[in-house]
């Protein structure tokens, strides 16, 4: 299985080679899509992880021991769908294919699996309906 997660590091572990451990000890394929980490501070990383469900569970436990939270990207991107007016302004900014609008219904479609946590939808929405939990 292949899924995107946001890893949130506390400042205590920010200089540990966490990703190396995931690859070396759990045989997990890791693709780093976005990272914001500076030594001495908290950090965030968007990774795509590919492995068996069992290995991913083991990795989660390993990360949890080190106080690294692992949140599926679907939960990091907040969207107040019921307030959306389907103007499409967010689709101008979203280049990952997560937010799309078009025929036949011209309502906004949100495919969280395609989100790359770029955060551009947050300022692009004229109604301020998006939030992204990534850093800050």
């Amino acid at each position, binding site marked *: 299985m292949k899924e995107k997660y946001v890893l949130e590091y506390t400042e205590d572990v920010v200089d540990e080679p966490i990703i190396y451990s995931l690859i070396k000890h759990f045989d997990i394929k890791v693709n780093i899509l976005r990272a914001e980490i500076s030594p001495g501070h908290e950090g965030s990383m968007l990774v795509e992880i590919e492995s068996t469900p069992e290995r991913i569970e083991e990795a989660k436990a390993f990360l949890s021991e080190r106080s690294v939270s692992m949140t599926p990207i679907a939960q990091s991107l907040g969207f107040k769908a019921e307030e959306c007016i*389907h103007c499409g302004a967010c689709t101008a900014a979203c280049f990952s294919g997560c937010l799309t609008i078009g025929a036949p219904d011209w309502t906004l479609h949100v495919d969280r699996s395609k989100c790359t946590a770029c955060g*551009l939808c947050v300022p692009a929405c004229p109604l301020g309906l998006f939030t992204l939990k990534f850093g800050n």
Partner: protein
Amino acid sequence: MIVTNYDMHAGRRVKTLYRDLSIAPHILYSYATLARALCGARWPPRTAPKRTALQGLLGLTEVGRLKMVHKTYDEINDRIARGEAVVLTAEEVARMGEELSPAEIARKVDVVTTATFGAMCSSGCFINFGHPEPGIRMESITLNEVPVFGGLAAVDAYIGATEVSPNNPRYGGAHLIEALVKGDRLVLEARGKGTDCYPRRTVRAEISKETVNEVTMVNPRNAYQNYPAATNSSSRILYTYMGMLLPKFGNVTYSTSGELSPLLNDPELRTIGVGTRVFLAGAQGFVTWNGTQFNTEKPRNEWGLPLGNARTLMLTGDVKKMDPAFLKAAYFERYGVTLFVGVGIPIPVLDEDLARRVSISNRQIETTICDYALDGHPGITRASYAELRSGALTLHGKRVRTAPLSSLAKAREIAELLKVQVASGSFPLAPPAQALPAHAVVRGLQPSGSGGLE
């Protein structure tokens, strides 16, 4: 325009056309029907075939005029009263236009509903708070800390949609208007110098649409007839009223409902003028004047449709009767506060000319794509709404994503609602009391200094 006569040789050609179209040869067909038959799958052509060229192709000896379809407002209102009127949305008629001629559409369809739901900055409302005892001549007024214009009589004010709170640049007049429509309470604070007739100097009160006398929306410029699309050639993100424009032609944004847009379905404003009843944010409002920046002189394409922002409407309606589903406050990043307004206008199909106008499709409506990175936002190319609505177009040899800024889903909701209202007789149609200007140009402003751009 109807084919009335043809010679023996041309007769075969026309009969073949009739057979291809599966239509009976004893019926006379319009120029558009025959032109479409000639063009085949290439319909509609980028350039309309000349009548003489068509005549030549068919070998016709005569192309003449037959009695045109003509309906009056009274006849259409009678049909509505009898429950016989055919009311369709402009999108439905655009599809019908691919099959039927304008003459056939004029016979079949009585009213076409149009709509748009987009950000319209030039919006606002007059409000009368009522007099406290003793009275105050309100000179400096805020609602929820947002300044409102008080340069009117003692307790009158104008809430401008784009005015913002000094404490929160994301909250402004548009939010006040939305709150009033919803029935929410707002905090009014006003100061005056105190006069012999109005001795009070300050007042603070909670108001809502239930407590005030009138709240009347008066929007100086709404429902733009077409609007240029936007792109960005620079190497940084531009934050504009046309949304976020990504660097190096990263996207193109556009903001009209195309074939559903009110003023694109009656481009010469034959049925829309002073006194025309409109759907305004859920209430029935009226066109009160031409909108500001009203422009009849924009370049047009071969279908007679302007290639950029042309005519506009000043609209008025009762805020107390509006529906929050059709009005929404918004904030465009680093630009400011604005108001999404839902506008719908029914167009009576009085004759073939209007039938042809209302049946235009997104392939025929074009706009100019402007580069917002350059001074004056020069146009770089033009594109049809069919291309813009396809999700991507080619710009400088590169595939560029396109994105709308006005809600087609909401516009469709309005057009459908309006269809029901018109057909039920609750939205009567009437000719304009006065036509909007036949000729008007837009002037720029000549600054006297460098204006802080140095």
